[in-house]
């Protein structure tokens, strides 16, 4: 998996490219968690993430909990349908709001969406 990040209007966008599983999730967790500070704004762009494993779901959960704990804001964007289904069926669907494009996602976190 590759993770790229960039800033857009004060929001950090993380693009996850590849599978988020037990091998890649520690790296994803490390990179994203480093940005989570009070008031932070984060969008995780998942358009190139075609698989999220159990371990991957747990990383997303940890990130969501950390955002809530420190008072940051984050949403997901471009979640593929099969990934969304897996999140829904395994009960990990209410962690983040999901948006279909980056503009909407950025505007949502700027308005203060957390979950």
């Amino acid at each position, binding site marked *: 998996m590759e993770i790229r990040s960039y800033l857009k209007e004060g929001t950090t966008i993380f693009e996850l490219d590849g599978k988020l*599983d*037990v*091998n890649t999730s520690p790296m994803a967790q490390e990179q994203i968690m480093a940005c989570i500070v009070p008031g932070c704004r984060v969008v995780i762009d998942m358009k190139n993430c075609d*698989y999220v*494993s*159990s*371990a991957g*779901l*747990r990383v997303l*959960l940890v990130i969501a909990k950390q955002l809530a704990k420190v008072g940051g804001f984050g949403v997901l964007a471009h979640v593929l349908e099969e990934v969304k*289904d*897996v999140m*829904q*069926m*395994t*009960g*990990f669907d209410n*962690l983040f709001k999901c948006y279909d494009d980056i503009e909407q996602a950025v505007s949502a976190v700027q308005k203060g969406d957390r979950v």
Partner: protein
Amino acid sequence: MIRVDTYPTHKYADFNLRTGKPIPFGATIVPGGINFSVYSRHAVSCELVLFNKHDREPFAVIPFPDEFRIGNVFTMIVFDLDYENIEYGFKMDGVFNFNDGHWFNREKILLDPYAKAIGGRDIWGEEPDWSNPYQYRGRIAFDDFDWGDDRPLELPMRDLIIYEMHVRGFTKHSSSGVKYPGTFAAIREKIPYIRDLGVNCVELMPIYEFDEFENSRISPVTKERLLNYWGYSTVGFFAPKAAYAATGTFGMQVDEFKALVKDLHKNGIEVILDVVFNHTAEGNENGPYISFRGIDNKTYYMLTPEGYYYNFSGCGNTLNCNNPVVRNMILDCLRCWAAEYHVDGFRFDLAAILGRNQDGSPMHNPPLLETLAFDPVLGKCKLIAEAWDAGGLYQVGAFPSWGRWAEWNGKYRDDLRKFLKGDEGFSGAVSQRLSGSPDIYNRHYRGTCASINFITCHDGFTLMDLVSYNGKHNEANGENNNDGGNDNHSWNCGFEGQTSDEGINFLRQKQIKNALSMLMLSQGVPMILSGDEFGNTQYGNNNAYCQDNEISWLDWNLLNRNYDMFNFFKKIIEFRKMHPCLKSSEENDYETHVDNGYPRISWHGTRAWDADFSGTSRLLAMLSCGNNTGSDGTTQYDFVYMAMNMHWEMHGFELPGLPEGYKWHVFANTDAPAPNDVWGAGKEVLLDNQSEFLVGARSVAVLVGKL
């Protein structure tokens, strides 16, 4: 703080190791690695076998060093494993001596009895590669889950309305309208329906990992492949069946099942698991090595003095439930489902076996049953026994209970069925069944809620088939119609099987409503078979254990066709909830009187206060009385009267008198065509004639007395 035991002490090939912790058994994620722990009293050595997911050949075989064995437990931490993508098993070495009961074979790769997730049958019905030496493959499961504030609901037993279902059959039919048919996720999609029906507890037929290909064969009649569809044959007690999860191919069945439980709880619905501890899928002497047989045959199975398997289960072997190690395994298992999965209760298949000693003799105070009754973690779980086994031990009413165990009341089913079809002389028996079977369940000791009342369950006819077939039609099972019970006490209402005869169909609908009225107005805990509410049929098959097809799957098209029936079910379930007098308990004993002088339950006939319990009677009326406190805090007397005429002619029933101001209102009359067959609870219609009610042939009327 970094713990010192997060560092390895040993090395084997490229693997870093450390002695593990013996408890808990199984494979547990620990900092830096996986703790493996497995019991065997009689093995002399053990190896851990590691595979990449789905691979036929292992990538490592790591012997447990001698110093890693503590007592009879082999335990080891292996560091730096890709625990999401591995599968593991054990090889055990020891004596092979049939007469002594030892079956060790160091070539066999064995499933961990404590495996929390199992691969190998990830997709239902996908033919396995039988040449693969390791068929059912232990996987590492994440045991964390974001439960929020969920916990088991702890609904009082007297309020429970159980709905029995098969996970796959509930939604597999193309008419179910769900995204992933036949899965845990699909049940979640149906929660609004279950809520609408009004039941508050789903009882799931076995969800422990089993092999649907066990004994699979081609039906000589239909040429279809027959599978072990029901799944009463456990491969792994701790693992939810992967193929029941839409996410099973990703190994996420644990999370998917937990998400289902959480969502059901959120909707006020409990979850009871049908658990099979009486035997395992390893069969008899000719069965395969899966796990227990190769790990410690003599511990896990009841053996004859010559070393053969006792067969009290009718399935080849009998789990040695009252061996202390096996007893602990069962306890660990149930605790896991209660604590990790938030399951609300258990129904134990062939539970009489759990009370047999290691030599097969029934025990007076079986330690396993006592342990479960008093276990702290299971303290609020429902424990329900199928109180018989295939070895002839029949304990309905006599199952050791310690005030905790309830039973499937087989006598209720049989007596109600005979009464329903018009057999004479059953009004006395039915009066016992309707009042919680005090003749069976010594009420001072066990209470009415010891009785799980049912007329149909997965085993036998559906309710529609009970009124459509005189005999079973199991030809598709490929055993010349010799399988399945013959004591169905069913009646086809005049024609064998489906018919377009309107009169017969009306009578069938009526019989179904009659049955449900009696069930819902009975003291005790009612259980409905899913699909009965819309007339689901198995085409006369009363033993559909091997039918993974339209015979078993619920046909949701029938919901539209039989919507009146569904409406009747829904209304009468709601009615039960609104009348506490139908749900007495030990504190609210049915045999006492209400302060207005009326008995809590009284029996009547065509003349009030004069029930005919004679050998020719087919009529009975029941009056239940209690207090009902309204939302405004005022208390009123609550009278529920049910007249049951199972005779083929109409009869007038004299109505019992009511206190001043109270009047009889009709709630249901199964003789009337819909929509006049049932009125909403609270919307009952005042009767013109307050002294007598004409009850049609083979009909039930339910009245309420209110101000």
